[in-house]
């Protein structure tokens, strides 16, 4: 029977002192590992005959501007279809050097998901076959989903800020 406890034991046996941060929010086991071994952990979860996490459900990134040295987190959601177990695996990286090894060798679905993550956050996936912007225009030079950039297009001149509750002299 594959349970969260089994998975945790196997991970601690294989990568002692490197996988940390075991949590179970809402029943889903979540852990983190240093970014250098992310491919080793993914390969282990894929190839192991008991763990069999062979389906990559989701790949995204989160920006935590307040944690120095660990600002960008790349989050992998994996799924074991046969035993119906899900797991979440996080990798933290520094914003000044956001290099993470790509998972496209293992999962072909990671191709566009990593391009989207690069487009939004600027995470550089080392070894990706085609790391270009996918959803935004090619000429864009900033990474829009980082917390410091605003949502609206700043070049509009026809919006009246007073009516939108920003600035102005109503109050």
């Amino acid at each position, binding site marked *: 029977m594959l349970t969260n406890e089994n998975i945790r034991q196997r991970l601690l046996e294989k990568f002692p002192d490197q996988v940390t941060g075991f949590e179970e929010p809402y029943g889903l086991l979540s852990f983190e590992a240093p970014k250098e071994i992310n491919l080793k952990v993914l390969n282990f979860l894929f190839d192991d005959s008991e763990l069999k996490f062979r389906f990559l*459900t*989701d790949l*995204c990134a989160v*920006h935590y501007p307040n944690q120095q040295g660990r600002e960008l987190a790349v989050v992998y959601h994996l799924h074991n*279809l046969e035993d119906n177990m899900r797991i*979440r695996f996080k990798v933290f990286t520094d914003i000044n050097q956001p290099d993470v090894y790509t998972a496209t060798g293992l999962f072909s*679905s990671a*191709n*566009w998901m990593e391009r989207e993550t690069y487009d939004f956050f600027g995470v550089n996936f080392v070894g990706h076959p085609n790391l270009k912007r996918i*959803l935004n225009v090619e000429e864009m030079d900033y990474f829009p989903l980082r917390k410091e950039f605003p949502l609206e297009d700043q070049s509009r001149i026809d919006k009246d800020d007073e009516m939108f509750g920003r600035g102005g002299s109503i109050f």
Partner: protein
Amino acid sequence: MSEHHIKLPEGSIEKSTTTLNLGPTHPATHGVFQNILELDGERIVSAEQTVGYIHRAFEKIAERRPLYQITPLTDRLNYCSAPLNNMGWHMTCEKLLGVKTPKRVDYLRIIIMELARIADHLICNSIVGVDSGAYTGFLYVMQYRELIYEIYEEVCGSRLTTNIGRIGGFERNFNDIAFQKIERFLKEYPEVLKEFENLFTRNRIFMERTIGAGPISAERALNYGFTGPNLRAAGVDYDVRVQNPYSSYEDFQFEIPVGTTGDCYDRFLVRNVEMWQSLSIIEQAYRKVQDFKGAEADVYHADVPEYYLPPKKDVYTKMEALIWHFKIIMGEIDMPAGEVYHSIEGANGELGFYLISDGGRAPYRLHFRRPCFIYYQAFEELIKGAMLSDAIIVMSSLNLIAGEMDA
């Protein structure tokens, strides 16, 4: 390249393949995405996809809005089956808040979700017909989509982008007219679906167009992250409603149709059978809802005082209801902090919502796991070596919805 039909002399700077831009302006129905195809005669050598022509930055917008204001955004993801996305989002919020919905609410949600699934599969299957030249099927089934829209209108007031339901249930009880329309749908729709099947399923021309077009094996499909009818057509019976049941799906009897080769014909048949199964689920849910009697028959929402507006007469007479009303409308309610990932079986596959909350009123990060975006990557592999007309049929049978792809 020596295996192409056009033979060029050595050292020539010309290309032996033709570049064709299957551009963003398609014949209306599919949506905006572009394929740059390299053709050798009429065979496709390679394809490069460009998406993002309708990128609306949902994930950035969601970081600013409290939970209810995100529901209209989820409507516009897969806009052919908007209630499915709404229900999925509400269920994610309920998972974060720890709310348990009563059975009647679950059954009513299932009726609406399965109607949305039928609406989406109707569009996909009839558009496969239109793309192979048969316009009649599309016109016949659009009448029944109008009836589904009328059912949505009775419940929430809007046809297409429904914003249906609230956290914990529905905004109002289904009235008699809604139930009459659901009965009328259950009575009249099976014949229409049978007639639609007669038009296509054993039609020789349709079979010759679609059998063998764009096949994919189960291992490649799993590696590409396929889910939903496309994966089931390839032979893997993965359905989120069965594996991680939500909203009381475990109380219902239904089958999961599975194909063999994963080509367009299998996808068409899988969607067709899923429509029959959805119809059977709606019938079972309708009977179960009618079985609730007395006070239970009036339950249409769970008790979530922080997110569900109190009834107006309480607002005008009781103090707590007034305060909750004010706080909910002004969006002053704080969510509990936490990370939750919830997924539902959308019409195209596993639609997932990854919500990270830091205890404020708006999410810290919301990511949508959109099935269309993930399986469109496989398009090149599906059409390599096929002819141009096969590429069109494969594109429409994959049910690519641009709103979900770019989000």
